[in-house]
C-alpha cells in the first residue's frame, strides 16, 4: 500500500499531504522535511526511486511541483510512477492545464479528486472517466445545495 503522498514545490513548500497510516504530528513534519530534502537534492536525470528506512520512495516532478509517495517494500515502483501520472492527468482534466497555482488555491478539490482515485493507500478506480464523473457529480450536488438554499451565494461556499 501507499503510506503517504506529498506534493511540494521546488522551494520545499507543502501543497498537499495525504497520510494512510496514523502518525504523530511531529513525525509527519519530520517525514515531510526528510522527503523534501532528499528529493530536492536529487540530480536532474537521476532515477525516480529512493530507499528511505524500510520504504520505497517514488517521486516525479511535474513543472514546479514534486509528487512524492512512500510505498511498502513489496510495491511495484514502475506502476507507482503510472499511478502518480494518473493523478496528474485527473487534476489536469479537472482544472484544465493544471498548474501549481490551481493546487494552491483549490487544495480541497485536489483532495477530493485524490479521494476518488485512492482509498486506504490503494487504487479504487482505474478508469479516468469514472473518477471525473464522480467528482463532477459531487460538485453538482454541492452547487445544487447552494442554489436551493436560502443563503446568499457569497456566504455558504468556502
Amino acid at each position: 500500500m501507499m503510506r503517504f503522498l506529498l506534493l511540494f514545490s521546488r522551494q520545499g513548500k507543502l501543497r498537499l499531504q495525504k497520510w494512510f497510516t496514523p502518525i504523530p504530528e511531529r513525525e509527519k513534519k519530520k517525514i515531510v522535511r526528510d522527503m523534501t530534502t532528499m528529493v530536492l537534492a536529487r540530480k536532474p536525470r537521476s532515477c525516480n526511486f529512493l530507499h528511505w528506512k524500510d520504504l520505497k520512495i517514488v517521486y516525479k516532478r511535474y513543472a514546479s511541483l514534486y509528487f512524492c509517495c512512500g510505498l511498502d517494500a513489496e510495491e511495484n515502483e514502475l506502476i507507482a510512477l503510472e499511478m502518480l501520472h494518473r493523478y496528474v492527468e485527473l487534476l489536469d482534466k479537472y482544472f484544465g492545464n493544471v498548474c501549481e497555482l490551481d493546487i494552491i488555491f483549490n487544495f480541497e478539490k485536489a483532495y477530493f479528486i485524490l479521494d476518488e482515485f485512492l482509498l486506504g493507500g490503494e487504487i479504487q478506480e482505474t478508469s479516468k472517466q469514472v473518477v471525473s464523473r464522480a467528482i463532477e457529480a459531487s460538485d453538482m450536488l454541492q452547487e445544487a445545495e447552494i442554489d436551493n438554499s436560502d443563503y446568499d451565494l457569497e456566504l455558504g461556499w468556502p
Partner: protein
Amino acid sequence: MPAPIRLRELIRTIRTARTQAEEREMIQKECAAIRSSFREEDNTYRCRNVAKLLYMHMLGYPAHFGQLECLKLIASQKFTDKRIGYLGAMLLLDERQDVHLLMTNCIKNDLNHSTQYVQGLALCTLGCMGSSEMCRDLAGEVEKLLKTSNSYLRKKAALCAVHVIRKVPELMEMFLPATKNLLSEKNHGVLHTSVVLLTEMCERSPDMLSHFRKVWLLVPQLVRILKNLIMSGYSPEHDVSGISDPFLQVRILRLLRILGRSDDDSSEAMNDILAQVATNTETSKNVGNAILYETVLTIMDIKSESGLRVLAINILGRFLLNNDKNIRYVALTSLLKTVQTDHNAVQRHRSTIVDCLKDLDVSIKRRAMELSFALVNGNNIRGMMKELLYFLDSCDPEFKADCASGVFLAAEKYAPSKRWHIDTIMRVLTTAGSYVRDDSVPNLIQLITNSVEMHAYTVQRLYKALLDDISQQPLVQVSSWCIGEYGDLLVSGQCEEEEPIQVTEDEVLDVLEGLLLSNLSTPVTRGYSLLGEILNRIKKVVSVYGSSIDVELQQRAVEYNALFKKYDHMRPALLERMPIMEKTASNGPTEIVQTNGETEPSVPDTKHPPLVTQPANQANDLLDLLGGNDVVPVIQTTLPTKPASAGGELLDLLGDLSLSGGPAPAPVPSVPVSQPPFLLDGLSSQPLFTDIAAVIPPMTAYNKNGLKIEFTFERANPNPNIAVITIHATNTTEADMTEFVFQAAVPKTFQLQLLSPSSNIVPALNQGSITQIIRVLNPQKQQLRMRVKLTYTHKGLPVQDLAEVNNFPPQSWQ
C-alpha cells in the same frame, strides 16, 4: 461581526506576506477570528472557517481547535459541510485524537445515507483512518455495502474492508461470503479493489490462501480475467498507451504470485499466461515495462519451469540495456534478489552489470556494486576485482567504505594467490585507506604474517608506499608494523619478486621518525611506529614519548627504554619475529596476540595462543605490558648442573662404601616454573624472581622382590638444612608383606630422625602403601647417602635385606 473572509481570499492574502514573521502575524489574526466564530456556534460559516483552518494547517500551524468543528460539519445535513468536515477529519482527527471515536455514529449514519456520494465520503474516511474500535463497530455496515449492486459503493466498500482487516484481522472471516462474487463483476474498479482485498486476505491467512486455491479455484478465474484484458481490443476507458488497464493487470499478477508460491498445481496453471504476458507486452513505454517487471517477479517467486525462469532473467537482462534509468534500477534490484537462486543465469549478464558501475546515477551505481560483489566467484575474481578496484578509485565517498569491505571479503574468499591478495589489499589501502573498517588493519597484518614467503616482498612494497604518502592511516599502521617485523629483510635488500631496493637502516628510521613527527598520524599509528624501531638511535626518539599524554604510548616508551638499558641479553629473543597467528573467522572481531611486547584486547578462550610454551631453559622474556605494575620482566635463570663432587668426605657409614664411583648427578630436570599468565586473563602480579627449585623430584630408593620404596622430599621450614623425606613402600606381589620394618643409617656428618610408620603391613598388589617420615639434618651440605635395612614377613617366611641409597637428587642436600 463581519463575515469571515473567504478561503481563496485568505490564501491570496497570506501569499503576499514577504517574511515568515509577517505570515505568522496574519495567520494568528485569522485564527483568532476563526476561534471567536467557532465560539458563536455559527453554522453558516463553519465550513468556510474549517477550510481556512485546513489551509493554515498545511502551512504548518496548529489547528487542533478545529477538531470538534469537523465533527459538527460531518453531522450537518449539507453535503458541502460533510465534504469539508470529512476532509478535516482525515487531516486532523486520526485515531490518536481523543475525539476520534465521536465520529463513529456519524459515519454509521452516513454509510446508510440515501445519497451515494455521502456514503462514499463515509467509506473513504473510514477506509483511510478508522481506528480499530471504529472498524469493529462498523464492519457490519461495510460488509453490507460489499454486497450492493452499486459498483461505485462496492469498490469503496472492498477497500474499506481491506482497512478493517488490517486493523482487526479477526474480522476477516465475515467478509468471506461477500467477497466470493466480486470477481464476476465487469466493472474494473470493483475488479481491481476485489483483487486487492483477496490479496490482503491471502497474505494474512494461509488457510484462506489454500481455501482460495482449492475451493474457489481462484487461479483459473484470475487467469481468465487477465487473458481477457490482454486479448480484448482497445478499450478507451482503461487504456494506457495501448495497454488495457495496466493497474489491474499488475494487481492480478501479484495475486497470482502469492497463489503460485510453493504450490505446483497453481504454478502450472498460470505458466501459459505468464509466458504470454512476458512475450507479448509492449515494452516501448514505462507502463509495459511495469507489467513485465511484475511478471518477472511472479515467475521468479512461483514454482515455474526453468524455461520460464530463463525467460524472466533475460527480460531483466534486456532491462539493463534500457535507456530508462528507472528500468535499469529495477532490473538491478530484481537481479540482486535472484542472484542467489539463479546464479548462473545472472552470471550471463555480468558484463552489463559491471558496466552499470559507471552509470551516473547514484542509486544505480549502488545496486550495481552490490550485485557485482554477489557475482564474484573463483573464476572471475581477477577480472571482477579489476573493475571493482577501478570503481573504488573513482566512486563517491559514500560508497568507498562498503566497496572496500566488499573487496576485502571477496579477496579473502577467492584470492588466487597470496601475492595477489596482498597486492589487492594494498591497492585498497592506498586508494581508499581512510574509509576502511578498523579491523581491516589487524586482518591484513594477520594475512601478512601467514604468508611467510611474501614477507620480503610485502615489506618492500609497503615501504615504497609509505615513501609516497603517509596520509592514509591504515596503510601507515600496517607499513610501520611490517617494517618493524621484517625490517631486516628490507634492509638486506633481498627480494625475489621485485627488484631489490637498497635501504639503509637510517633511511628506514627517517621514514619512521617522519611518521612520528607528522601531525597526520594518530596516536595509534604512532604506537605502531614505536614498535617498529629497532636500532639504538631510537632511544632518543622513544624517550620523548616517555612523557606523552597518551597513556599507552607512554607505557610502551618507558618499557622500550627499560629494554634498551638493561636487558641486552634478552633483546634478541624479545625482538624475535612474531609467530604465525592463527586465523580467526573473518566475520568476527579479530583479536591478535602479540607476544613481543604489545598486547591488544582480549583473546577468546577458544583460541589457543600459538606461542606459550617455550622450554624454560631459553631466556623466555615476556614484557607483560598490561599486567602488573612491574616493568621488570620475570626472570627465570637456568639451573646450572652441579658436577658430582669428586672429592668429598669419606662417608663412613657402614664401612665399605666408596665415594669415587659417585653416581652421575641426576640430570637437571626442567624446572616447571609457573609461567606468567598469558595476556590479560586475570593478570596477577608476578613475583619478581620465581622460587628456584621449589620442587624436588621424588626418587625410587629400593625396588626388589616386588617391594618398592619411593622417597619424596620437602624442604623443612624454617631450617633449610633439614630434608624431610617421606618413604612410600608398595608391594606388587600377590601376598601381603607383614611386620614390615624400615631402618635407615646415614654418614656421621648427618643426623637422622625416623618417625613412626603409618602401619607395618604392605598390602599386596599395590593396594596400599606404608608411609614413614625421615628427617635428615645436613648442616654441611654434603651429598646425602643412606643405608637401609628392611625386614618383613612374606608368604610366611621372614625376609631381610640391606641396601644403599645413593641416587638422591642434588636439591635434597644442597
